[in-house]
């Protein structure tokens, strides 16, 4: 506190507190990271329990909603940021070139990944595999909105993905949504003929094991993100407590 000219302020502490506060408005997400982890875990649990207590949890309608989860998280993250981390007004962080380059690396990486996934899905459709297995498929148009989704995921990234932690959360949620989207797109004409389980051999085994490992990793990551987000939020509260009380 600087009530008079006779007291010398702790300059280093002032600088650190300012940078920390600014970080919550530019890079850190706090409770939004925890929310992202929670959503990731919930999606995994829903996938593992498609018929929870006799209810068909994973129905078509829910899957259609689930694909919006990454965008929903982006919206909630912004609202939470404004409600929780702008209490003392806006403090814009000093530009950090190295950090900005890493952020764009993530955005570009995710864009390329989404593009590859969309092209793969399109190729699978156009290759005639589905048409061959499903004669009726050629007669009805594919659910194009599914192919539009990856581009909807990409559009807000340059503005709304502000930090590396946010990019990680968004990447996990997006990848999870794609796990629903792509098969949903490919099999929207009905189950393939012959059924999937015959003839997949080693590829099927490897894919199955890969999926189990991925599911476990997402669960662990989600739990860690919840803890990390909560800790970050506590750090913010401690920062506010360390500021001088209003006169």
């Amino acid at each position, binding site marked *: 506190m600087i009530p008079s000219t006779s*007291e010398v302020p702790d300059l280093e502490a002032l600088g650190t507190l300012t940078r920390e*506060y600014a970080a919550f408005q530019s890079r850190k997400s706090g409770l939004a990271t925890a929310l992202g982890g929670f959503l990731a875990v919930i999606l995994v649990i829903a996938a593992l329990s498609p018929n929870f207590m006799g209810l068909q949890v994973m129905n078509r309608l829910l899957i259609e909603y689930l694909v919006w989860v990454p965008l929903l998280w982006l919206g909630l993250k912004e609202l939470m940021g404004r409600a929780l981390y702008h209490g003392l007004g806006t403090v814009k962080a000093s530009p950090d070139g190295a950090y900005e380059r890493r952020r764009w690396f993530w955005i570009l990486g995710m864009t390329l990944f989404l593009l590859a996934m969309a092209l793969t899905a399109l190729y699978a459709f156009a290759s005639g595999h589905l048409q061959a297995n499903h004669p009726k498929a050629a007669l009805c148009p594919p659910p194009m909105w599914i192919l539009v989704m990856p581009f909807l995921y990409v559009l807000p990234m340059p503005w709304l993905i502000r930090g590396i932690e946010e990019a990680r959360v968004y990447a996990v949620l997006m990848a999870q949504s794609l796990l629903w989207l792509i098969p949903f797109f490919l099999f929207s004409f009905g189950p393939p003929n012959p059924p999937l389980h015959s003839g997949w051999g080693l590829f099927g085994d490897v894919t199955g094991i890969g999926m189990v490992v991925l599911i476990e990793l997402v669960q662990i990551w989600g739990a860690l993100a919840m803890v990390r987000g909560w800790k970050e939020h506590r750090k913010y509260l401690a920062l506010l407590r360390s500021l001088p009380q209003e006169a």
Partner: protein
Amino acid sequence: MAKPGTDPKAILDLDRLVHEPARLAILTVLASAEEVAFLFLQRITGMSKGNLSSHTQKLEAAGYLDTVKAFQGRIPVTSFRITEDGRTALRLYHQQLRALLPKEGKS
């Protein structure tokens, strides 16, 4: 010319505008970010509105900071940015002060 730290007149060369603790605190906070809201600056320095306004006006008159006025919805919001002159003055002040202070272990 006397060695750094040995010239008693060197202390008179300190920028008095920066040397004042409240203004030194303001410049330090502003130098740690790109733009700082009035409310945050007031809270972190623990100054009253009037006192803070008075100091920021002096710093602005010296060209050490810029005042940014904007609206968030219908609410007017005042923020400050340190200027290049302000950064230079603060850096110079730190250098001068370090030169004046006795080295660690020497009294």
